[in-house]
């Protein structure tokens, strides 16, 4: 895949992340849905360009609107890496790869995001997750563990939905645009 298509797809991935996050907020969904573009770029372009898409999404959002999102760029970058490596190994057209991605990221994203959230926000998000966080903190008396556990359910649903959405999109793309996701796996479900 040539460089110019890669540059354009990275930019499009960033835009999809931003629009997806905006739409999620507008519809008041209890999820994030702001890494669909990262996953799409990772699946088509590979893990490293996917990670770059994720990092630049947060950097751009930080520059344009809310600089507090910049530290979370590392989480978005790791999402790109995980999705890209799984797509490179297995392709991304079956039903198992998105499931693997969802389960891995449901734990990995909070592991990376919780220290940042605890340091910057005391573990608080300003959303519905705070209720769960408060209950867990009251019972466990551990700030990090409570913040981590409170984030797992939302991350699990969020990453599974995003991964399956990307899988369905990839299946319908023309073969010249599938990139590394065009690999057929042995187990096609």
């Amino acid at each position, binding site marked *: 895949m*040539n*460089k*110019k*298509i890669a*540059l*354009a*797809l*990275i*930019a*499009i991935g*960033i*835009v*999809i992340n*931003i*629009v*997806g996050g*905006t*739409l*999620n907020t507008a*519809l*008041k*969904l*209890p*999820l994030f*849905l702001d890494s*669909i573009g990262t996953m*799409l770029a990772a699946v088509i372009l590979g893990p490293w360009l996917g990670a770059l898409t994720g990092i*630049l999404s947060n950097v*751009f959002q*930080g*520059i*344009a609107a809310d*600089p*507090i999102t910049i530290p979370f760029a590392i989480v978005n970058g790791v999402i790109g890496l995980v999705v890209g490596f799984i797509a490179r190994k297995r392709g991304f057209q079956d039903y198992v790869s998105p499931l693997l991605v969802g389960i891995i990221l449901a734990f990995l994203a909070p592991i990376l995001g919780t220290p940042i959230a605890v340091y*910057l*926000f*005391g573990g*608080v998000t*300003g959303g519905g997750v*705070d209720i769960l*966080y*408060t209950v867990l*903190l*009251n019972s466990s*008396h*551990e*700030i990090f563990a409570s913040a981590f556990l409170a984030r797992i359910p939302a991350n699990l649903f969020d990453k599974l*939905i995003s991964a399956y*959405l990307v899988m369905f*999109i990839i299946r319908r*793309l023309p073969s010249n*645009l599938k990139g590394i996701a065009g690999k057929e796996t042995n187990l096609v479900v």
Partner: protein
Amino acid sequence: MFKSVLHKIKTGPRAVSVLFVLISLMAYHSWKPLLAYLLTFLAFAVIFHVLGQLVSRLLPILYLGCVIVLIHSLVNPSNVHYIYIFGIEGFNYGLITALRLFNIAALTQLFLLLNPLHEIISAMSWIHPDLGIILALVLSTLPVMHQQMEITLKVQTARGLRRGRFPWQRLYAYLVILIPIIVKALVRGQVIAQLLHVRGYGLHLAKRNLELGHSDKIAIFLSLGFLIVNLLLANASLLGGL
């Protein structure tokens, strides 16, 4: 005087100076210096006539800060002494966290208000030309995609799409609106790639020269010195507290 000094410093060195000041903020674990910094940033906002804009951007952080203080006052594990149901140790922890967050938000928003977006992107394109073109493409594509989102929302609503009370109904609405946007974005991406090729992007890359003026160097050294002094002061107060 401040404005004339600021105009002599380029965006890149300003960003580096802001980064050093941000790191020095993180060294403090007491509310008094954090409050002093916040008041200093607000004073700078008054000097540069951006106080109103800064305050409006900080309002969501104010809400979040109140939630942080409230939750930690109620359930922070280090709560030992209480006033009614509010723990003093948790209140202190929440206050320090909220003030630190405020300071980070105030400083970064001040930087964004005093530096136009195109200058920031030009500074980033110095890091790598491809980085600048990616960010420029995002800037040009984003308003189009936002408009596309609004049109798709109206069209789907006219076709009978309802958001509903339950999360799964809203999730269905989300997917129905987002999927056409993604498809259009990918088509647009192909067009952008063709345009880049037609315009000969990447054939001739100009050599990048880093030219720092005296003001730029002074700004960077002063901010580095500020960081070192703050780290020493923060350590001294921590050891004094022990």
